[in-house]
């Protein structure tokens, strides 16, 4: 049965392979890449190695999307925020949940029955360590091969990485990647390329020194680990690191840009998304904010936190690193989406990487050299920075919107949540447009240093977050990553937290915090269809095909950082790092509850 299905899948790969630009030589994981090219499947959180999150299917299109209706549903049995999306591989759907990180396999021929389920026993202490709800951004998959049977990879909140037999749900191996006793958790999704599964880290707030690790998919053996701070050998720098752009900084800076040994607790974790270029054999991701949060405690640029990394997949060696926000003062953790595209720049088609950063700037780089192609504001209300100097790569800051002791920062845009957070976005290669879910949230930053007794002071800052100058908390935009031109943009009442999905049916889909899944004409932004889900959305939609029919799937289940007020029943507007105030309206629109919704015509 399974073999026959695979044969069919391969057949359709041959048919579509020409479109992909995958040219023979160096595929990531050949079988996985082929499966990803087949629009029946959705085998990576990012859909494909380029993270296009785009499907060539057009059975559902602008003409008929209004007839979309619920095909089937599934309760995840879990409350809290549902980030990420299910995977679909060879007729089986893999559903994951936030903590306790259960996994369910559903046969698409009979989705009413659970094929297998995996319920990990986790240290409940992990719940307390997670900063912003107990989210999980999804699973990774690899088909059967030299490494053995097809596998599902799960990152658990308590820091373990688990490989499961995709057919049976049996545990094949389990590794400890992060130690919750050190404040380190795992919330990001694993990412498979070649014989490796990449796993990040979380907990920068608590002084975790961030790293990314490559494990062998076969047995979980660690192949390399690259830190964000510290000595060059820990950072895994290539001999020609930043050779094409020495002004980004090169060697010794993981130590020199910190005072003393503060780099040891310097943060720079990565819990966001990856992309991979099989031709260059390079993997891309962003390291997050420096720690501790109080910037006065860590003078210097704090390299290499807040950095876009381009690393050789085999060795982990960094070819380039571009730090977007040197010495961060706002918590603009730069772990966001990495979207790969091939576009013409200066009369030449170049391999590009586009990254909408939490700091409100969209960066487009040549992903071979790391050279900046463009850096522009995702919205004209971004004010901490006047512009990015493309020659030096440095942000030109506006001191008015800085945060430091003795300075009350008013109306800082973006807020600590960023104009773009963990949303997984999409790219339509025909239109050369990225579709972006945007947070439109600003903040006041009021530092305090209050005496108590015996020389003890309470040092901190009170954050108040609220809708940005345009009046709503969210936006959706269609953007050219090279020119910075917005093809269209529409406001959303709440932040669009989870990201977007685009199709060749001239459609783009996304979910909203108040619980709508929406479809817009990707050419104009016109709203063509919406459906109210039981709970708000912080994950991203996917699409797949089964028995000749196109489906759209999405998780419903509010939570995450924007939902911390709901999840933990917080009332103080400054709680949840100010998120409670920004989203206090949300409780009037939606409540927790995890479910999967699947739509078809």
């Amino acid at each position, binding site marked *: 049965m399974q073999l026959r299905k695979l044969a069919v899948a391969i057949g359709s790969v041959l048919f579509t392979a020409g479109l992909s630009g995958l040219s023979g030589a160096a595929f990531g994981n050949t079988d996985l890449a082929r499966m990803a090219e087949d629009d029946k499947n959705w085998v990576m959180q990012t859909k494909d190695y380029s993270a296009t999150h785009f499907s060539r299917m057009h059975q559902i299109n602008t003409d008929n999307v209004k007839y979309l209706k619920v095909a089937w549903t599934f309760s995840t049995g879990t409350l809290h925020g549902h980030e990420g999306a299910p995977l679909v591989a060879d007729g089986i759907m893999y559903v994951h949940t936030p903590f306790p990180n259960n996994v369910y396999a559903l046969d698409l021929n009979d989705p009413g029955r659970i094929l297998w389920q995996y319920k990990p026993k986790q240290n409940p202490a992990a719940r307390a*360590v997670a900063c912003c709800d107990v989210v999980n951004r999804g699973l990774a998959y690899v088909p059967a091969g030299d490494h053995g049977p097809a596998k599902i990879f799960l990152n658990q909140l308590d820091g373990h990485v688990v490989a499961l037999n995709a057919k049976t749900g049996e545990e094949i191996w389990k590794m400890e990647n992060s130690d919750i006793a050190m404040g380190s958790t795992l919330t990001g999704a694993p990412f498979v390329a070649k014989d490796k599964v990449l796993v990040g880290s979380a907990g920068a707030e608590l002084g975790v020194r961030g790293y990314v690790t490559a494990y062998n998919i076969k047995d979980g053996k660690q192949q390399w680990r690259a830190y964000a701070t510290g000595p060059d050998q820990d950072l895994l720098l290539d001999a020609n690191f930043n050779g094409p752009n020495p002004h980004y900084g090169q060697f010794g800076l993981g130590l020199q840009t910190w005072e003393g040994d503060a780099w040891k607790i310097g943060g720079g974790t990565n819990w966001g998304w990856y992309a991979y270029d099989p031709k260059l054999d390079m993997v891309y991701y962003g390291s997050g904010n420096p720690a501790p949060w109080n910037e006065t405690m860590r003078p210097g640029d704090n390299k290499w936190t807040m950095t876009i990394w381009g690393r050789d997949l085999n060795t982990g060696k960094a070819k380039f690193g571009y730090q977007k926000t040197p010495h961060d003062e706002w918590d603009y953790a730069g772990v966001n989406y990495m979207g790969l595209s091939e576009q013409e720049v200066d009369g030449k088609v170049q391999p590009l990487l586009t990254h909408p950063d939490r700091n409100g700037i969209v960066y487009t780089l040549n992903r071979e050299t790391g050279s900046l192609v463009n850096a522009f504001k995702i919205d004209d209300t971004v004010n901490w920075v006047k512009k990015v100097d493309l020659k030096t790569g440095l942000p030109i800051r506006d001191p008015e919107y800085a945060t430091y002791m003795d300075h009350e920062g008013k109306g800082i845009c973006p807020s600590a949540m960023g104009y773009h957070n963990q949303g997984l976005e999409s790219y339509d290669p025909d239109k050369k447009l990225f579709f972006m879910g945007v947070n439109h949230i600003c903040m006041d930053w009021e530092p*305090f240093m209050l005496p108590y007794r015996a020389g*003890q002071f309470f040092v901190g800052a009170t954050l108040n977050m609220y809708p940005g100058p345009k009046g709503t908390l969210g936006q959706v935009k269609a953007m050219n990553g090279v020119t910075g031109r917005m093809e269209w943009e529409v406001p959303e009442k709440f932040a669009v937290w989870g990201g977007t999905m685009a199709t060749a049916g001239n459609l783009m889909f996304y979910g909203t915090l108040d619980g709508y899944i929406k479809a817009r004409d990707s050419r104009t932004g016109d709203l063509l269809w919406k459906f109210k889900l039981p709970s708000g959305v912080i994950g991203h939609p996917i699409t797949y095909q089964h028995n000749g029919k196109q489906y759209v799937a999405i998780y419903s289940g509010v939570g995450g950082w924007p939902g911390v007020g709901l999840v933990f029943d917080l009332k103080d507007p400054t709680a*949840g790092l100010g998120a409670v105030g920004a989203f206090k309206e949300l409780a009037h629109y939606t409540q927790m509850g995890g479910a999967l919704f699947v739509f078809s015509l």
Partner: protein
Amino acid sequence: MRFARVTLLVLSLPFLGSGGAVAAEPLRVCAAENELPYSDKDGKGFENKLAELIAGELGRPLENVWWQDPRYFVRDQLDKGLCDVVMGIDTGDARMLTSEPYYRSGYVFVYRREKGLKVEDFDSEFLHRAKQIAFMPDTPAETMLKAIGRYNDQFNYLQSLVGFKARRNQYVRYDPEKLVNEVVSGSADLAVLWAPQAARYVKEAGGKLEMRVIPDRQIRADGGKVPFHYSTSVGVRKDEQALKADVDRVLKKRAKEIQALLKVEGIPLLPLDESGPTAAHTGTKKYKG
């Protein structure tokens, strides 16, 4: 403005000062609901007892006005007139009028008693040998641990003491009893705490622990002095001269009992006339509230 208020107070002084005549007027004390060993709602803190003693001597019934967040009780309660008196304030705290100090104590090293082991100051070799060190963030202990290079490697441990609750936007309580018990259990080799906070729990450990006052001569990495000894007063609102005078009178009259109360608690007491800075002299740090 200030003068006007003072004048008014002076006029009303005889009325207030006549003690017994206004016995019905309660003495409203701002006190922590849950900050043992200082104070708690059940009155188990040594400052609860001190407040009782002062109210008793003034012939006024004690009324506790509870707070939960030590960051804001001066701003939100004392300054707003919801209470009138605060126990256990650094002498010279710029936000208040502070009484004559009623005791002086210091930060202490707390460690398991061991033959021949004497942890004297931050130059002590033991400070480098100790695996885990329990301390309160944003205290002189933190400043010195930074100076000797033991802060960064203790950062994770520090967070673990409060279950990794981030302090950015909220008050996170570090429980002194827990910190002392970390040393008892062997989880930490050393605790650096303000003696009045630690004394009760060191005593409860029944001789297992050594508690040594840290000398007031600790020097920061940049050469500045880090005060480790502090004098303690009772605080009132800035314009409450008369109340301060009342309190001073009681503190003087009942000094022996107060000393006894602190001794029972196990607090090491330093001479009140010990020279050295108080909060008044170190109060260069700005604060908002």
